[in-house]
């Protein structure tokens, strides 16, 4: 579904991605794990189109999308719920969701997705008129994911959805990611919380200073010695 070849992304002279190649299969949950500064967010932003790679190629359903704008990528079905949520703090929950649907012109589809979001996240259903900046961290994360779902994506990219959440909420968020995947959306997940991510992942990659060092199924990586040492605390 998504094929990435030898991706290089720079910030000025700093190399943040040094030749990353991988693929995402339709229907799977794929995750990237890695420490602070490994380049996970850089990868997500390059895939969403807000960062331009210096070299490399991104193919989506066989088509080269490397040069497409973020907007065209969203229209094709790739969307990112970014690190730190980046919801619109002064908007209500409802207005935030409407912004997620900016590329969708089909009113019926919008209505269906809107209801679907509240089925997934009943906690924010009663809060449609609440200003998003006043939501709790967990609710904001749900809103950020819900907003992304409003674009009716084929691939949902999630950058550290568990960041700053209590253990119970982390578990809840991962259950919901699983649920979204079961409903047919392919998931590309980035996490520092390697344990939780690997448990729900079909496959995973470890990213280290801009390079992929290990790859395998979620199970394999959970039992990989190197991974256990570096990311799972022994």
């Amino acid at each position, binding site marked *: 579904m998504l094929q990435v070849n030898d991706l290089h992304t720079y910030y000025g002279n700093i190399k943040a991605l040094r030749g990353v190649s991988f693929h995402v299969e339709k229907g799977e949950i794929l995750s990237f794990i890695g420490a602070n500064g490994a380049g996970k967010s850089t990868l997500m932003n390059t895939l*969403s*189109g*807000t960062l331009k790679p210096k070299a490399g190629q991104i193919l989506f359903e066989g088509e080269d999308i490397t040069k497409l704008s*973020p*907007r*065209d*990528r*969203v*229209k094709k079905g790739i*969307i*990112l719920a*970014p690190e*730190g949520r*980046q*919801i*619109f*703090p*002064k*908007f209500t929950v409802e*207005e935030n969701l*409407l*912004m*997620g649907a*900016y*590329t969708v012109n089909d009113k019926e589809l919008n209505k269906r997705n809107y209801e679907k979001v509240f089925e997934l996240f009943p906690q924010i259903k009663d809060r449609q008129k609440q200003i998003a900046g006043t939501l709790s961290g967990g609710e904001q994360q749900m809103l950020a994911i819900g*907003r*992304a779902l409003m*674009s009716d994506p084929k691939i949902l990219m999630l950058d550290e959805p568990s960041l700053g959440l209590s253990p119970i909420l982390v578990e809840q968020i991962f259950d919901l990611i699983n649920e979204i995947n079961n409903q047919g959306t392919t998931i590309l997940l980035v996490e520092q919380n390697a344990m939780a991510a690997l448990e729900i992942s079909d496959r995973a990659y470890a990213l280290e200073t801009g390079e992929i060092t290990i790859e395998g199924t979620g199970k394999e990586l959970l039992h990989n010695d190197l991974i256990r040492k570096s990311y799972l605390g022994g």
Partner: protein
Amino acid sequence: MLLQILVNGISLGSIYALTAIGYSLIYSILQLINMSNAAVFLTSAVIFYALYTSLTGSSVLLTFILTLMAAGAIGYVIEVIAIRPIREKGDSNTYALISSIGVKTILEQICQGTFGSEIKQFPTLLDGKYIDLFGARTSAIQIIIILTTLFILGFMSWFTQNNRVGRGLRALSQNLNACHLMGMPVNTLIGVSFAVGSMLAAVSGVAYCMYLKSISISVGSAIGNKAFAATVLGGIGELKGAVVGGYILAIAESFVSGYYSMAASNFISFGILILVLIIRPTGIFGKKEQKKV
């Protein structure tokens, strides 16, 4: 006397408020002080004058509509030509500011070249008609200006709350990156914000010249500077701040010129501007700038 001063202040405040919204809207999105706004104020008045005297003299309304369309187009084109290339290269806002000063100079030069530097008579509405408002002698054009402004403010409120594009503009001012990520047409929307700001400046420019019944080349910078002072007073980046700032400033000026002297009233705006910058740089409605990560 008191009421008279108030009415004068409110009609002048309407003119400041409309132009001030343009400064504030663009600042809220790009953190850019768009200096070309004042020149659009002038250019629109000149366009109105040129159209009225050469083509459409029979209809003020038609002239007004054509002027608004021209102003919108000018605003959009300014963004595309002078601001967008700088934005997309990721260069500092200082360059965009300088670029907007360049646009201001060019527009003023064009106006001067085509219009000349003398004062000319400007068409107005219901000339010589006055209404007695609880003892305040109010000219018909003042009433028209106040009512038109109220209508536009109402429309802007609806537009930014309930219209998809208007809501998009508010989203841009909260998180530009998130707008890109949601697949919003960010460039088009920024262009629209310039078009909207320019159309408001056009209403303001035409209204002001109708009020004066004359037009001269210096009219843009005079009002532009005061509208900018009003924007800062209200809290730059806050649309309601621009409106409130505009009215406060104009009413204050009106009082000073009524009880003291016209000349002194010109110091008021800039006196208030400097005071605000010292005491409360964020203005009435502005909140402390939060560093965006």
